[in-house]
């Protein structure tokens, strides 16, 4: 065994330390989620009712659904800030086409296609033109929201048929549970995403790309194709989230979901997905998004103002990014102090 410490191992062992903490971090968020649920049940009347739980989780269904492909993107070292705008574009198109007399069965595939096209544009700019995803998607964030306004102006379309709206609202649940259909869809998609990330070659590739893109490329991984695919899936999910949002509120507007991208990214980071890429678990991301949803609901039930909720979300996010690093630093410092303490000796 080459166990003798040498210069080259120091940074690497620190990296593995950070990673092992990150792995524990997702468990910590899961534990925190359970704790918040328990505290909520004990302290807040009506929190535990199935009507409220159905409402609480349905209320974050779109954020949760978009958080799934976002997790894959962030693991691969990318980000998509245009998701909420694509949600808005999906919603506006749904409204505009419905107003124009299209059948709902035709509208949905068209909206999904637009989501794919938006994802292709993001992916194309990132992989072919070689721009950083942060810059590209800040641009398309504005672009897609602008297109949404072009599609629907400042109108709201509200006369959607009850049959479709019923599918999305929180008063319709899967019989015998508090799960709404959008939440059920999220659960299915989350299961699929978890398998993709943690048990397929594609998932393995994502971690490699996020940790060291060049090495992944040199190992024959089709880095560009995979990134493009991720952006397309993210666009697709975001557009579909736009349809859900429209039906849930019974209202198609160009400014639907404004600012949701921050909520999505906050959930993912809160769940321990490293913004630098290469680290994280889907369990953590799901726990992160549920935690944000439950907290939001608890704060609302306790009549705490929306502004405060935003502050709480922000603090949580900062804490989630900071805590693992602080712990790692403290642990490392303690190690170093132990290493430098001279053994007892007679002088």
């Amino acid at each position, binding site marked *: 065994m080459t166990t003798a*410490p040498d210069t080259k191992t120091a940074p690497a062992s620190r990296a593995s330390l950070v990673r092992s903490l990150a792995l524990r971090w997702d468990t910590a968020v899961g534990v925190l989620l359970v704790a918040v649920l328990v505290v909520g049940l004990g302290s807040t009347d009506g929190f535990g009712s199935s009507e409220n739980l159905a409402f609480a989780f349905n209320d974050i269904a779109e954020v949760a659904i978009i958080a799934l492909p976002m997790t894959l993107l962030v693991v691969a070292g990318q980000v998509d800030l245009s998701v909420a705008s694509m949600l808005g574009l999906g919603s506006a198109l749904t409204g505009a086409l419905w107003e124009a007399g299209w059948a709902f069965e035709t509208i949905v595939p068209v909206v999904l296609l637009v989501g794919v096209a938006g994802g292709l544009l993001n992916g194309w700019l990132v992989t072919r033109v070689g721009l950083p995803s942060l810059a590209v998607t800040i641009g398309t964030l504005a672009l897609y929201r602008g297109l949404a306004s072009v599609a629907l102006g400042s109108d709201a379309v509200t006369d959607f048929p009850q049959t479709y709206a019923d599918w999305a609202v929180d008063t319709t649940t899967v019989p015998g549970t508090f799960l709404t259909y959008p939440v059920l869809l999220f659960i299915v998609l989350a299961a699929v995403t978890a398998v993709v990330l943690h048990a397929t070659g594609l998932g393995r590739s994502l971690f490699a790309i996020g940790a060291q893109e060049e090495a992944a*490329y040199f190992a024959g991984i089709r880095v560009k194709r995979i990134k493009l695919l991720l952006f397309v899936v993210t666009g697709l999910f975001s557009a579909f989230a736009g349809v859900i949002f429209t039906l849930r509120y019974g209202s198609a507007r160009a400014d639907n979901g404004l600012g949701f991208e921050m909520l999505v990214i906050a959930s993912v980071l809160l769940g321990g997905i490293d913004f630098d890429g290469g680290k994280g678990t889907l369990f953590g991301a799901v726990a992160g998004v549920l935690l944000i949803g439950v907290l939001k609901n608890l704060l609302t039930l306790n009549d705490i103002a929306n502004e405060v909720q935003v502050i709480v979300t922000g603090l949580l996010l900062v804490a989630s990014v900071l805590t693992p690093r602080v712990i790692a630093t403290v642990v490392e410092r303690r190690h170093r102090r132990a*290493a430098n303490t001279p053994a007892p000796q007679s002088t």
Partner: protein
Amino acid sequence: MNQSAPDPAPVLALKGVSKSFGAVRALQDVSLQLFPGEAHALAGENGAGKSTLIKALAGVHRPDSGEVLLDGEPVVFHGPADARDAGIAVIYQEPTLFPDLSIAENIFMGRQPRRALGRIDRKAVHATTAGLMRRLGVDLSPDRPARGLSIADQQIVEIAKALSFDARVLIMDEPTAALTGSETARLFSVVQTLRAEGAAVLFISHRLDEIFELCQRVTTLRDGRWISSEPLEELTEDDLVRRMVGRDLDDLYPKQEAEVGEVALSVHRLTREGVFRDVSFDVRRGEIVALAGLVGAGRTEVAQAVFGVDRADAGEVKVGGTVLRPGSPTAAMAAGLALVPEDRRQRGLVMDLSIERNIGLTGLDEVRKRGLVSRALEHDRAADWAVRLQLKYNRLADSVGVLSGGNQQKVVLAKWLATGPAVLIVDEPTRGIDVGTKAEVHRLLSSLAADGLAVLMISSDLPEVIGMADRVLVMHEGRLVAEIPRASATEESVMAAATGRNERAAA
């Protein structure tokens, strides 16, 4: 100033130093004396304790027992800053400069001379830096940004920085690992200048020829113990290797005769504008073909174009008779090509991932069970190759970054050999790895060739080229200029072709 004869009083010494990390005894009763005006080599395999010794001298580690003596007086360094103030400077293999600052700003980072109102005295910074560069005999403008400097130039900046602290002891940890021949020659002349000024230099290198060229004395460590300190004049390379590995290394270049079969890799008029032009060659089954040349001659670029990570502008690559789709590593792999890249840490491995995931990365389709990646299969694949290549590790789930350089290289080899390639391209396969592992890698390449693998080996290590290759292809400024059969390959003939003239290179 002290000239050549070692002063009787060592400027810096270790006496009976021991240091343990948990149960690991990194240093046991090690002594070392550094005299003014000498270049002293520190030899030993990876894990012998060289790095720990350097850190004890540099104030990073405090010894558990034993003493550090400065000018004969016991001292205790409470941190690297103490050691620096005592005139001890460490130059690492990969310097860490601020890329956006100029050379002068880097040298005076955090202690810039001030003028009135606390403004930085740029003139003084510039002039002092220019003076340091003159003293080192190096032509580098103080205003040049650190970004874009070669590693060699960055090291010079670090040395200048050390001099600006009035360093009397310079510790150089594998400074030549990433340097070209002429850069090494310049570094050595800088070291000679420092010696002439009375500085003591502790030099660490895996290249024995460099130790013999630069140093007067050598201290050898093995398994954390002091083995010997002696003048190099009285030693041969074989003696030194024996002290390092504790046994006779039967053969550093164990080239087996292999039966040469049909053409496995055929490169025809491959061109990448401005990089290389009209490169054509074949590699047959059972052959080890070396691609030699100076750094910058385009060897790595040819390998990368053959493998498809870079796109060639013209020409074609055939593996086993089929023409490869250009610009596609995936197609190259499917055809049986494997590339072990030069830059292990950036390109060869994903440093944050575990050993088994790194080895699994090239065979994501093969470690599947019912469509999903099987951790068991992934583990088995890695375990199998770890045994075959005698990898030294704790657990396969450990991050590959904790391994020594030699073992990291074995992981890269494992990752590619696991794909069952027909053609293996290795780019600087033994750079920066210790002599014992080096011999293992050579034995491996040789036996792979004997089993019918076609090997293309890029190497700047001439003894390795001469010792291992059946044929030597030589590149010069982007062109293939010579093909030398094993029988007539000598360091002189290869170097003559590589420099494009009939003279030996500076190194």
